[in-house]
């Protein structure tokens, strides 16, 4: 008989582990991924594959070069980063740029801090923002979704167009009124299902919501961040809209366009970079929402979700410090 094992209690473990959580997120990302393949065709497929493979490769390489011991590529976190990074770029992006994005996301934003769990910022967002700042033209050239699957002419210029948010921002800058601009926009229903210009993963709000419910069901995320993020964005946009409907767009427009859904459901809820306490999570979502609208309405960029989340990631340690859970028996002691 083998030696008996001695260890401290507890001697049993719940069936939860990091792998299950990470692959749960991957599963939740599948609907949005399928939508992106449907709308953007083979280019989406290539970009997603390249992104995932290069993320896994960079994580493995960083492990081999800088860390001892087993690599962590099998835990699935690199796959998530890869998919999310691909989701955040336009479908016409040159592949080599995406590889650079993956390098920054994995090596700079994640492994340099010590790997999964130690990164202060969401790696995929860091990669995305790096690309946005480095290659602004390529990152804001949006091929329009084209329904026929397996279209090969994804580099044809005639198919590119701005995102709805970009159209509005540009239009307002040129002094058009909102009414005239809105004629250029797709309908809400179209936007809800993804019929608009945008990054790979952010086009279909419905697909993202399905993934979000799956993660809620698996208890991978809690409702706090998405609800407060989206709620704050809506509320803030509503206030502006009520003040002057000719200058500010309908709050529903903010909801279905751009990366709000993707950010609120998949990026802001990243366990590693979001607060741990429900109250802190509500505050985190609130901050994200306010910053998103601030950047969208008054900022230089048409889209502000990634910046908002990254900024809130930076204050997460503070939020964690400020919001401690209620301790058992504490109220009576103080009272």
């Amino acid at each position: 008989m083998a030696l008996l094992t001695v260890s401290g209690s507890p001697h049993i473990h719940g069936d939860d582990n990091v792998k299950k959580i990470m692959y749960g997120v991957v599963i939740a990302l599948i609907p949005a991924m399928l939508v992106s393949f449907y709308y953007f065709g083979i280019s989406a497929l290539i970009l997603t594959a390249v992104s995932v493979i290069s993320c896994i490769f960079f994580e493995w390489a960083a492990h081999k070069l800088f860390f001892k011991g087993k690599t962590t590529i099998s835990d699935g976190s690199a796959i998530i980063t890869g998919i999310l990074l691909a989701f955040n770029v336009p479908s016409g992006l040159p592949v080599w740029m995406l590889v650079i994005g993956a390098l920054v996301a994995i090596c700079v934003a994640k492994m340099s801090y010590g790997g999964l769990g130690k990164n202060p910022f969401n790696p995929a967002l860091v990669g995305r923002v790096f690309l946005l700042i480095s290659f602004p033209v390529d990152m804001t050239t949006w091929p329009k979704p084209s329904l026929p699957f397996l279209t090969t002419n994804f580099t044809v210029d005639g198919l590119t167009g701005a995102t709805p948010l970009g159209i509005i921002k540009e239009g307002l800058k040129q002094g058009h009124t909102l009414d005239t601009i809105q004629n250029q926009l797709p309908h809400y229903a179209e936007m809800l299902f993804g019929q608009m210009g945008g990054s790979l993963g952010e086009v279909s709000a419905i697909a993202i919501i399905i993934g979000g419910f799956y993660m809620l069901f698996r208890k991978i995320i809690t409702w706090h961040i998405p609800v407060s993020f989206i709620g704050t964005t809506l509320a803030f946009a509503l206030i502006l809209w009520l003040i002057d409907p000719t200058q500010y767009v309908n709050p529903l427009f903010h909801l279905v366009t751009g990366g709000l859904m993707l950010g609120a459901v998949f990026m802001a809820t990243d366990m590693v970079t979001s607060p741990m306490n429900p109250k802190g999570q509500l505050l985190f979502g609130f901050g994200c929402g306010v910053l998103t609208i601030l950047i969208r309405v008054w900022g230089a960029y048409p889209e502000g979700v990634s910046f908002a989340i990254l900024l809130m990631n930076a204050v997460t340690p503070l939020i964690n410090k400020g919001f401690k859970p209620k301790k058992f028996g504490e109220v009576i002691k103080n009272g």
Partner: protein
Amino acid sequence: MKTFKIGGVHPEENKLSSHNPIEILPLPKVASIPLSQHLGAPALPLVEKGAKVKVGQLIAKAQGFISANIHASVSGTVAKIDDITDTSGYRRKAIIINVEGDEWDESIDRSNELKKDITLDAKQIIEKINSMGVVGLGGATFPTYVKMMIPEGKKADVLIINGVECEPYLTSDHRLMLEKGEEMIVGVTILMKALNVNKAIIGIESNKMDAIQHLADIVKKYKGVEIEPLKVRYPQGGEKQLIKALINREVPSGKLPIDVGCVVQNVGTAFAVYEAVQKNKPLFERVVTITGKNLKKTANFMVRMGTPVNDLIEAVGGLPENTGKIINGGPMMGKALNSTETPIVKGSSGIVIMPEINACRIETLNCIRCAKCVSVCPMGLEPFFIAALSELLKFPEIENESVMDCIECGSCAYICPSGRPLLDNIRLAKNKVGQIIRNRK
């Protein structure tokens, strides 16, 4: 159904032995009775090598306020008083008795007849509990009489009886409630009289419906005793959690249940109190569950203290080939044994045999800050944070994190998806912070 408010987990129940009636385990050949079977100071041996002892004879006397008498669990000759390895592998003094026959002390009432009338008054009852060496049988083995002596200026208004048995696998309390239900209830009334309260609530988790119904029938005859089914949730058997669940009072941090007017006793203790007070029988045997997924059979045994764990294992058909761990107590809070020679003591509620595949922990990865440990902590602590500080040896800082409130239930380490040894580090921190606090005094 009621339950406590913050945290908690629901491990797989695995109550494999819940249908095994209590059997009497044959006497061991040699009984090693440790002098420290309770919380507090070890008892002082009263017998010497070569002395003849009878079952129930006082062989070691309590030393100090928090301590308990120890009685012979077998009859025979004292072979020696020597060090034996206890559950942790460290060596502790024990009285080793060679068993000869089974001769009981005459003062013990061995009949099975139920004695309901309580002839003693409150003071006498507490004195009796003390002299019979009764300690809390839920696992903490705190001397019962100390709990029953209410400090001046405080008052108990309700007695809470813990029949929760929230640990997976264990069924000893469950079987006791089913088979010795009425005796246990009489024990409860004795405790009520001693505490001068007229209300007692027995909390039982709803995975023991048969016990709930059985006791509910019995308590109709007893005034002031209530049965309360509780939602299955670990660690409901923790004193503070049980009080919160049953009467919604919150014991303040660093205080005792008596500060909110409660006294909590285990059902096993209530039965031991019945036997001590009504039958004059000291605490020298208890119900022990022996269970495990790979065992030939599971069982609930009435075991004399000092019986080696080996005897129990032999009685259920020997250790399976792929045994990886033997746990004294439940899998959430029990201690892993070094050897099967360790004796059963007052605090052993069960022996759980784990197969090799379940014996080791999962691989430890980085903390992914999922906050699951925070959400399951029944005391509202931040286990990941305390454990991280403990790994950095920053013990003075940990004191501010209320680490002494930790009840060591293990929910955090149970749930951690990264398999981090959270409770190990927290326990170390508790130990070190305790030293810091003691040094300050």
